[in-house]
């Protein structure tokens, strides 16, 4: 996906959701994956030059990788703080920039790894485990 392309933004997350539905994954898990993936995709569109989303499903769970080339995150702790945002006016006019993207992702994932380098890019690995059946 390309930075600033709001026309196609959200298509990757939509495709991830449809794929998980076809695989018959638990609906509550799909909802968490969908929200986190959409937030990660919008982060790429709003903040990066370009990026990609990769979905991996195996016996251990669901993993979504969101990787971009862009300006990176100078202060990750600040970015994880609810309410903090550096979104553009254009993005804000569309309802983004609440400063809830990364906190939302953290809330939805079972394991979150963020590797970021200023002026290089950001790699976000989101892991989700299957619900235990009792």
């Amino acid at each position, binding site marked *: 996906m390309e930075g600033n392309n*709001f*026309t196609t*933004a*959200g298509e990757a*997350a*939509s495709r991830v*959701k449809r794929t998980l539905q076809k695989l018959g994954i638990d609906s*509550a898990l799909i*909802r*968490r994956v*969908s*929200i986190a993936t*959409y*937030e990660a995709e*919008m982060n790429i569109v709003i903040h990066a030059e370009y990026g990609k989303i990769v979905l991996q499903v195996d016996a251990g769970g669901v993993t979504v990788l969101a990787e971009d080339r862009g300006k990176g995150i100078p202060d990750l702790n600040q970015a994880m703080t609810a309410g903090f945002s550096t979104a553009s006016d254009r993005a804000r006019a*569309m*309802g*983004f*920039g*609440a*400063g*809830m*993207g990364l*906190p*939302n992702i953290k*809330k*939805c994932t079972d394991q979150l790894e963020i590797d970021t380098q200023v002026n290089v890019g950001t790699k976000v690995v989101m892991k989700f485990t299957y619900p235990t059946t009792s």
Partner: protein
Amino acid sequence: MKLIAIQKLLNATILTGKELLDHLEVKMICGSDLISDVLSFTKERSLLLTGLTNPQIIRAAEMIDLCGIVFVRGKRPGDDVIRMARERKIPLLVTELPLFESCGVLYNAGLPGCSGLSLATGGDKSVAAPRPS
């Protein structure tokens, strides 16, 4: 409450999804113009009241399985947005009422919000935010 009853309460115009209004049961309401807040706090079978009319609101609705969107203040989305909603079977309504008044009408009619908090129970802010269900 059925979506058709909500459409009548808000005297709302139906943009798409007329055939779904009799069947869809709305459990709770979210009123917001911030997409991340909608994603974070809305639960399944919720109806969204918003002033946002760009295509991303449909994308967000798709992610969290909203049962419909009511555009407030008489705001009408473009045909592209209506088409996206139709393809995803998401009903769209428009009411002339502003957000606050629309939420008030539905709250008075017995529909709860998505927070699960109430002043009667102390409005305890320390309650941990539930995970999206």
